[in-house]
């Protein structure tokens, strides 16, 4: 499960959060980052994505979101 994160003072998500047991990993939107590559691959497989407020994105919303990613 992934959740988008909007940093203080910004309006759009810059990173995505992934729960790793008791820890949380914040993944930057960098195509060279393998966690980011895995994030996109997992979204394509249907893994759940929440917006910054915790709302689960629909399949269509995820597809739209993916199109906007690098």
């Amino acid at each position: 499960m992934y959740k988008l994160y909007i940093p203080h003072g910004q309006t759009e998500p810059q990173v995505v959060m992934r729960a790793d047991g008791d820890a949380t990993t914040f993944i930057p939107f960098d195509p060279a980052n393998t966690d980011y590559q895995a994030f996109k691959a997992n979204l394509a497989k249907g893994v759940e994505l929440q917006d910054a407020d915790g709302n689960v994105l629909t399949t269509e919303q995820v597809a739209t979101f993916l199109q906007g990613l690098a």
Partner: protein
Amino acid sequence: MSFPANPSNGQAAIVNKITYQYSSATNTWTKLTSLPTYLANLTANNSITIGNLTMNGNLTNITAAGNLYIGGTGVFGTALNYVPANAPVQVGFNINNYSQFSIQNANTGNNASTDIAAIANNGSDNDTYVDMGIIGSGYSQASYNLYNPNDGYLIVAGNTITQGGNLILNTYQANDIIFATGGTQKNNEVMRVTSANVVNIKSTNTSTSTTTGALIVAGGAGVAGNLNVGGNTVVTGTSTFSSYISAPNTFGFKNRIINGAMVIDQRNAGASVTIPATTVTYDVDRWAGYGTQASKFTLQQSSSAPAGFVNSIVATSSSSYSVGATDEFIIQQTIEGFNIADLGWGTANAQAVTLSFWVQSSLTGTFGGTVTGYSNALSYTFGYTISSANTWTKIIITIPGPTTTTWNTTNGGGMVVRFSLGAGSSQSTASGSWTSGFYFSVPSAISVVGTNGATFYITGVQLEKGSTATSFDYRPYGTELALCQRYCFKYTVASNYGPYFMAHGIGTTTGRGLLKFPQTMRSNPALTFPAASSFQWSFGNVFSSIALAEQGFDQSSIDFTTTGLAANGGYMVTSANNTTSYILASAEL
């Protein structure tokens, strides 16, 4: 012997050791009791025919102006093809066999030899001559113990005044000087000095020490020009270089594997890691486990190691899993494209690499591994044998450079080195060539995950350019750590309120800090934090959240929420009464 035909009046002849003189008046030969005057004083204009000449004394009265012909031009024989000038003594032959001018000293004494000597005008018996000869069979002289009985020799005795005395071997025309031993066949040639000024040592003897090989030099050797060595070079002394050194796999990052000695373990500090399904999971730095099934093996840093190493990584089978056709279980390291760019892979100039490593297993047999592209599906599988259980074995695999496909040479993955712990039939292919597709082992290789509790240790992994494995590149710890930190850096603290980074207050409940990385990372790293309550601002309150705000290759900005902050106030972020908190930056491949 008969008398000569058509003799002239007064001509003498010696027949059967008796001297006769011819009289044309009577046409008879008369026995003489003494030599005629002209026979005793032969001049260039006289001639004499001798059948068999036996002498017990000296042959004298051949003056400086006269010539002695034996067998060749003159009264003693037929004309030769070539009559040399300035040759008072001429010997000619016309024999279809080896023709010899033979001399022999029949003496068997300890000082006897047989010599032909040419003596300079100022020479003597021990000075200024050249002497070709052979030692007698009874020779024994302590002061000349270089010579053994029946040795042949060619000696020049120099002159202490003129300083002459060089031995000159000269073909004069553009021909070679050839040295051969043991026979007269071409393969007996051991050295040739060619007319092109090349000294060619033909021997192919292998050198395994300073006293073996085709050329053995007891002292030093000076080489003014280039020195090209096709084989290996072993230097037991100190090497001093006064200019630049160019060596593809010897100096400076020759080992493309990072943390090949398994010394650095930032993430787990020696703790065991269970490998989940289909997720690359790192154990010691840069080394990850991967499996198509969950929890079939663990990885852990080990202190078991062969001589010269301190650590290894051990894979321990967690069950007796029978691998399916599409299963794969591996230990792997992905090498960044920048670090293989010089190999020229995917081009006609692709360079070979050599993979060497130490392995130990509780199992024996043929194990498998592979080198594959990261972004291309090209595999080179290899098999190797562990013959003795629980015994460290060094393996060397040479891999030709692939000339096809595109290999990443930037900050993405370049190639992946994998060691199989079990692979299904569709994941395996025969070793020894580059094959399209992703393959991870060789057919019928040992499956470590197939035996519960089976172990597989590996360390000293080195991948270097070239076809020769060299000694492991044991880099300084700080250097190895810095190399690892391009891919992963784990901030930890040693005290309960250990410092992490400096920050400022945005408002009373929100703040932002700057986290600087010790190395420029491969990509913008992902940051992992434990529970936010593990952190606090110094001498203040614990955090309720902590998150990555903006990311770069060299630093991150980190957001946090807490209480008691002042806008624009400066703060140090520390651990909150613990030493277990951390911040993990990962830009792994």
